[in-house]
Structures are given as C-alpha cells and as structure tokens.
C-alpha cells in the first residue's frame, strides 16, 4: 500500500515535470543558443524566414532547433555589448522608462487603494468600477485623445508621454485594494483610539502589512512595462529613444546576435523574480483570496 502511494506520487511528479519542461523549453533554448557562434546559428537557422528560396530548390530545407552549441563561444555577447549595435543605449532607454513608472505608480496606487478599501465615501464602488474598466481597456482605446493631450503638453517624442499615463494606470490600485481588503478594520480602529491619523495609520500599519503585495506589484509592473510595445511605437518616433522591447523585435532579422540580446534582456526580469519569488508568490496569493 505504501509502495503504491510512493509510485503514485512519483508518477504524478513526473507528469507535472514534463509539463514544466514544456513551459521552460523556449527559455532554455534561448539561453543555450546564446553561446553559439554566428556560423553555427547561420548553419542551423539559415532557412528560417526564407519561404521561397527553400521551396524553390525542391528540397525541404528546415531550420534545425538545436539544444546545445557544438562550440561554446561568447561571440554573440561580445557583439551585442561592444559591437556596433545600439543595444546598451536601448537598454538604458528601457530602464529610464520603467523605473519612474514603477516608483510613481506604487506610490500613487497605494494611497488610492487605501481610500478605496478602508475609507467610506459616496460612489466609492462605482468609481472603482470605472478604474477597473480603464484597466481592461486596450491602450488603443484612448490613443487619439492621449496623443492630442501629449501634443498639447509638449510631450510628443519624449518618454514622459509614456511615463505619466503609466504612473496613473489603474492596475496598481486594483491589486493593492484587493490586498488591503484583507486587513481587518480592527487594526485601524485600534490605531484611531490611540490617536493616530490616517496618514500615520497608512504608513505604520498598512504599508508594512501589504509588503508582499507591493513586491508582487513591482514584479508585475516591471514585466508589463519592460515588455511595452504599443506606446513607444506611437509616442517615440525617434528610434534612438525606443526601448529594448521594440528594438528586439527588429533585431530578429539578425539572428547572429539575437539570442544573446534576448538573454541579456530577460536577465534583469528573471533575477528580480527569483530574488523576490517568495514575496511575489505570497503577494499574488493574498490578492486573490477574497473578492
């Protein structure tokens, strides 16, 4: 009976591991292939994207997805980092877009979430519904007015056209409100009895209690804005101001260095995630338990 249980547990683990492998496979491939030489890349992936040529010859020439490089080389990384590409410039463009958005949104959203979860005012739930609505709306919905507004404020072709709307986006409010709903009113009542004002309550009770939520929000916002595509395409015409996400979609024409560029691009994200994973998971979990 006991043996049967162990077998059951092991086989289930095996199935789940197979699914996990499926999830990890594109990431692993990108990583291992980033150590290939340009020659090997060309040899393996040359036929990709060349529809006509490959069929005209009458042969089926396929790209060959390879797990491991024949020869480990840092050639791609060298080219990306010190070669002629604008990689580093774009990297910093990304950082300067994403960092202010995260810092700003966290601050603004935490305040607003407190109001939406712990304060009473008329029309509270209705206004919250409006926030949730805009959170669901694709960026294009307010594209024209936003463009006109950015033009009037003189923000066109400036990162601020992206940063300001990013700071006031509703997602942070939604997420943190969800979180603050868990904090019992009793804590706040007790602090009030002791003579604490709302600001004091907010900074000494609420903020420490929603730390996992804040951590989760930082990671989620990082993911979201680090991946941003639509906004920079519209608001930043100058290619030298565009972030990496847009640049990488073009670098794919140059597979010789694309893998290394991709790895470098995802590294900050993955490191942040692994560093904050416990917090992140806890943060996400607590946000979803109570509606």
């Amino acid at each position, binding site marked *: 009976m006991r043996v049967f249980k162990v077998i059951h547990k092991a086989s*289930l683990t095996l199935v789940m591991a197979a699914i996990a492998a499926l999830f990890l496979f594109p990431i692993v491939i990108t990583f291992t292939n980033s150590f290939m030489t340009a020659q090997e890349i060309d040899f393996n992936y040359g036929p990709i*994207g060349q529809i006509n040529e490959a069929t005209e010859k009458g042969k089926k020439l396929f790209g060959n997805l390879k797990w491991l490089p024949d020869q480990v080389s840092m050639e791609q990384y060298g080219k990306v980092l010190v070669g002629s590409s604008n990689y580093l410039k774009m990297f910093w463009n990304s950082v300067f877009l994403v960092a202010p958005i995260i810092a700003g949104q966290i601050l603004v959203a935490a305040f607003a979430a407190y109001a939406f979860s712990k304060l009473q005012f008329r029309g509270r739930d209705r206004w919250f519904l409006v926030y949730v609505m805009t959170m669901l709306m*694709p960026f294009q919905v307010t594209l024209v007015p936003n463009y006109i*507004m950015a033009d009037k404020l003189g923000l066109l072709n400036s990162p601020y056209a992206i940063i300001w709307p990013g700071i006031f986006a509703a997602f942070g409010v939604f997420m943190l409100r969800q979180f603050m709903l868990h904090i019992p009113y009793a804590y706040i009542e007790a602090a*009030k009895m002791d003579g604490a004002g*709302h600001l004091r309550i907010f900074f000494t009770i609420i903020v420490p209690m929603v730390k996992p939520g804040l951590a989760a929000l930082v990671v989620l916002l990082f993911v979201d804005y680090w991946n941003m595509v639509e906004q920079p395409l519209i608001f930043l015409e100058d290619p030298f101001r565009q972030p990496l996400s847009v640049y*990488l979609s073009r670098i794919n024409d140059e597979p010789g260095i694309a893998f290394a560029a991709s790895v470098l691009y*995802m590294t900050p994200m*993955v490191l942040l995630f692994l560093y904050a994973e416990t917090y992140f998971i806890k943060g996400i979990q607590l946000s*979803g338990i109570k509606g």
Partner: protein
Amino acid sequence: MKQWFFRQGAAMKIMKWMRRDAAAVWIFLAPSAAGFALFYLIPFMMGVFYSFVDSPVDLHFAGLENYRELLASGSFRKAAFNTFYFSAFSVPLILALSLGLALLLNSKLYFRKWLRTAYVLPLVVPVASIVLVWQILFDWNGSVNAWLSGLGVDRMDWMNSEVARYVIMVVYLWKNIGYNVILFLAGLQQIPKDYYETAYVEGAGRLRQFSGITLVYLTPTMFFVVILSIMNSFKVFRETYLIAGDYPHDSIYMMQHYMNNMFTSLDIQKLTAAANLMVGCILLIVMGLFAVERRYRQFME
C-alpha cells in the same frame, strides 16, 4: 511662547481635520484621481465626443454616421470577430487548464515548489526574448514542420493560415497559466479540509465534491482570475505584433491592429467609434462579473 501655542493649535486643528474620513479621502485619492482623470477619464470622454462628429477639425455633429460606417467596414468586423473569438475561446480554456494544474499541484507531489516556479517563469520572461524561438518553431521552414515531415505529414504555414490564431493562443496560455495557477492554489488552500471529509462521510463522490465544494469556494478567486485573464487576452496583441508584425494573417488581425491602422491613416472617427464599441462590450462584461460577485456574497451570507 504665544507663537508656539498658535502653532500647536493649528497643528491640532489639522490633526483633527485629518481624522475625519472626508478629508482623508481627498488626501489619499487626489493624486491618483487627478492623474487618472487627466490621462484616462478625460481622454476617454474626448474619444466619445470625437466618435459623434464628422471630423476633429470641423466638429459637426454627425449622429451615428461614424458607427454606421464602422459597422459596414469589413476589416473592422474581421478585427472585432477575431478579438471576441480569441477572448471567448482562450479565457475559458486558460481557466480550465490552470485550475487543473493547480489541483494537480495541490495533491501530493515531490518538488512542488520547483514545479511552481517553472510554471510561473514564463510570466516574467519578456516575450521579445522568446519570439525568436516561436519563429523557429512555427516558421514555414521551422522545426514543427520539420518534425511533421519526419512523421510523413505535410508541412503547413502556421503563421499564414487559420492556425495562426491557435499559435497565438498557445503563446497566451504559455505566458499566463502560471499566474492563474498561483491564484487558484491560494484559493484551494483556503478551503477547510473538513468540508471534504464531511462530504465524503455523507457519500459525495469526487465529482460532487468538486462541484459542490471546490468550485463554490473558489468563486471569489475565479472572479479575480477572470478579470485578469480577460485583461491579458487583450494584451496578447503585443505577442502577436512581435511575432507577426503590422500586417499579420487575417485570423490574428485584432482590434488593436485595426485601431493602430486607423491611427496611422488618421481616420479618427472610425478609431474612436471602434474604441467606444469595445469599451461598451468590456463594460457589460465587467458589470456582469461584479453582479455575479455581489450575488455570490449575498448567497454566502
């Protein structure tokens, strides 16, 4: 001395004022509300206004003319259908799959934490990094076709046929399942174990337990997951754009492609009209969800 008293008095007054909720609401909500109004609410209302005039320069009231033209446009209908189809198909699918994975992950397993990390990792990997692999897989000369022809099956042009839609769905699932799994896991762990024991004693089968206990107590989590999944199903435009560019195959031509193209061709009327129709649909969905949640809460009480 007098001055000190005065200051103290003013400070006391401010403190008292602060303690009243109405004032606190202003202080806490004002920064967000101001920015939200400026960058979301007012632009949205401007959009509604533009959709009813015949050009943003003349500002002649045009009634429903823009909407009539929009609905007559073939590319709009295509985009609307694709977006609707995508969300209507992939959201239930991701709910089912992530709930299934969460249930499995919640049973007795080795390496549970590692497995969970593996499922969540795609969420934090930027798609731009992975696009290359997707292309290598689904290109005409790509690896999937190589494997297919190895099995003696004819190759197909994944990204330039109806199947493209499902390729994008796979990308969507791959990216977002992990997040939902975490949410469901948390919800599952909230359900007291003795509910199941009682049900078991009373003779309820596995399926009955699942529908009578698990699903009922997961409803609040479900509400949250559905909202996020819908939001992310609209965000899949990015992946589509990165994989297939400005002009993808018809089957993955989304509302966002349409609106982007209307923007490039400066057809403001159609863009805003399309945007408003989309918002109308989203509003209906959100209100429906909130209504379900309210009823559930009443039911539980």
